[in-house]
């Protein structure tokens, strides 16, 4: 099982004269949690919907579990679970009825009660779906995507619009998916989400991948430090350097020689947030 779960090579997608995806490449290994991270309108959803079989690509190579999703093979739909960015459910059924119905669409479904438990909906099992809260509906989205026991789960912006508690709960569910050995492809514009969940991420902007790697490796600032201090006039200075030792030595020597204190001296590493923003802005 060495073949990647997802393979994308030089993917392009145009809507009329608008090029939403302009040559995206990435691979997702089996059992990996992979994130497409980027600002709104970067082409994340278009890419995922091509992989889910909702859209036809303009050009490029795409393989999902060894199938071409553009042909929408039934075999592939049996092995994949999809959480769309936003879509409703039937209103006049209970959570359990809906899950049981969905289970019946798949050849080897998971036990409905087990899925309710996994999604945190056990208490709402007999509630009509139209009475669920927004967070509960999102958990139902997860449950519906899981009940067919898929090998691969797509999550398109799984926590957008959530309050912090609901986000943590959703993250727990994604982590449990990973523990079950599922491959997960998620899109997000939240950096902390990508950091918390993903083994690897691809940063997408304007239809292109501008960086790929583990969240920690993605940090090109690993070799960069920012040194800041305030001079005797109270003016704030900042300088970036690969080697803060020399700079600090110089600064402290000068300060000692002049007998002036170095106020507000700090040495910091850029956060991933800053690196991400820098990448996204620099590329434009």
């Amino acid at each position: 099982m060495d073949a990647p779960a997802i393979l994308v090579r030089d993917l392009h997608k145009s809507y009329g004269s608008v090029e939403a995806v302009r040559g995206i490449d990435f691979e997702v290994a089996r059992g990996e949690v992979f994130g497409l991270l980027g600002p709104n309108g970067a082409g994340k959803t278009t890419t995922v919907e091509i992989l889910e079989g909702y859209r036809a690509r303009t050009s490029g190579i795409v393989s999902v579990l060894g199938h071409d999703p553009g042909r929408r093979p039934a075999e592939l739909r049996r092995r994949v679970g999809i959480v769309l960015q936003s879509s409703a459910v039937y209103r006049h059924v209970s959570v359990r009825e809906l899950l049981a119905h969905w289970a019946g669409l798949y050849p080897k479904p998971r036990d409905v009660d087990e899925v309710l438990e996994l999604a945190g909906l056990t208490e709402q099992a007999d509630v009509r779906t139209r009475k669920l809260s927004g967070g509960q509906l999102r958990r139902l989205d997860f449950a519906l995507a899981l009940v067919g026991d898929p090998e691969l789960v797509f999550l398109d912006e799984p926590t957008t619009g959530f309050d912090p508690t609901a986000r943590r709960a959703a993250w727990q569910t994604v982590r449990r998916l990973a523990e079950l050995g599922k491959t997960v492809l998620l899109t997000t514009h939240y950096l902390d989400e990508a950091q918390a969940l993903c083994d690897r991420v691809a940063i997408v902007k304007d239809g292109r991948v501008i960086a790929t790697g583990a969240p920690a490796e993605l940090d090109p600032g690993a070799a960069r430090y920012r040194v800041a201090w305030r001079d005797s006039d109270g003016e704030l200075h900042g300088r970036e350097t690969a080697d803060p030792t020399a700079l600090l030595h110089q600064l402290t020597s000068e300060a000692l020689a002049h007998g002036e204190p170095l106020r507000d001296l700090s040495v910091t590493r850029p956060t991933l947030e800053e690196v991400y923003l820098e990448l996204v802005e620099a590329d434009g």
Partner: protein
Amino acid sequence: MAEAIRIGWRQYRLERRMFWRNPSAAFFNFALPLLFLALFGAIYAGDRENIDVLVPGIAGLSIVSTTFVALGHNLTFLREQGILKRLRGTPMPTGAYLAALAGHAVTNAVIQLGIVIVAGEVVFSVGWPRDWLQLGVFAAAGVTCFALLGVALVHAIPNADSAPAYVNAAFLPLIAISGVFYDAEEAPAALRDIAEALPLTHLIDGLSGAMVTGAAHWSDLVVVGIWTVGGAFLAIRGFSWEARRD
């Protein structure tokens, strides 16, 4: 194939269950035609000729409301809410899903026709249908035609808010000129010509022949058939699983 039939049957049963739990759907499908039957029946009380026109007219109206109107509303709602898109991501075969929807509409049409026929005999003494075979043929043709036209109409409806406007803009004038409530022959020539070109007048003429005289004109099937072919073409060609993006 066995798998598709099993899944289609499950979907059909779910559609039935959801239908009965949704009072407004049940009202529009069943109560409205019966209300019209009761009201116009009272207006025409004792007027044999008009009652003989009204009962097949309401039968035709029932077919339109259980297929064209119901599908126009429901499919638009399902599409705009993203439910169709969600279903499309599951292993449900497209044919199984559409068959379940069609089966659901046919079941409603059959129940409704049954009620109208019984009411026609018991309340209005028009007698039992003279020719059940003709009735079956025309009912089947009407259900097929108006179901496909309903699916085709969904393609023209841009969003969920405008569904009632589009459906009613087609449905209300159609029933007004097609001889549901009065003999279409008595309408002004211009309206009659328009009605003659539309399928409902011919469906009602056929139902009337089958139910009242026992001698329906098969030529009426031709017009219904032409609209069925046109409806099928537009329904298949225009069908969309997703709401349009802005």
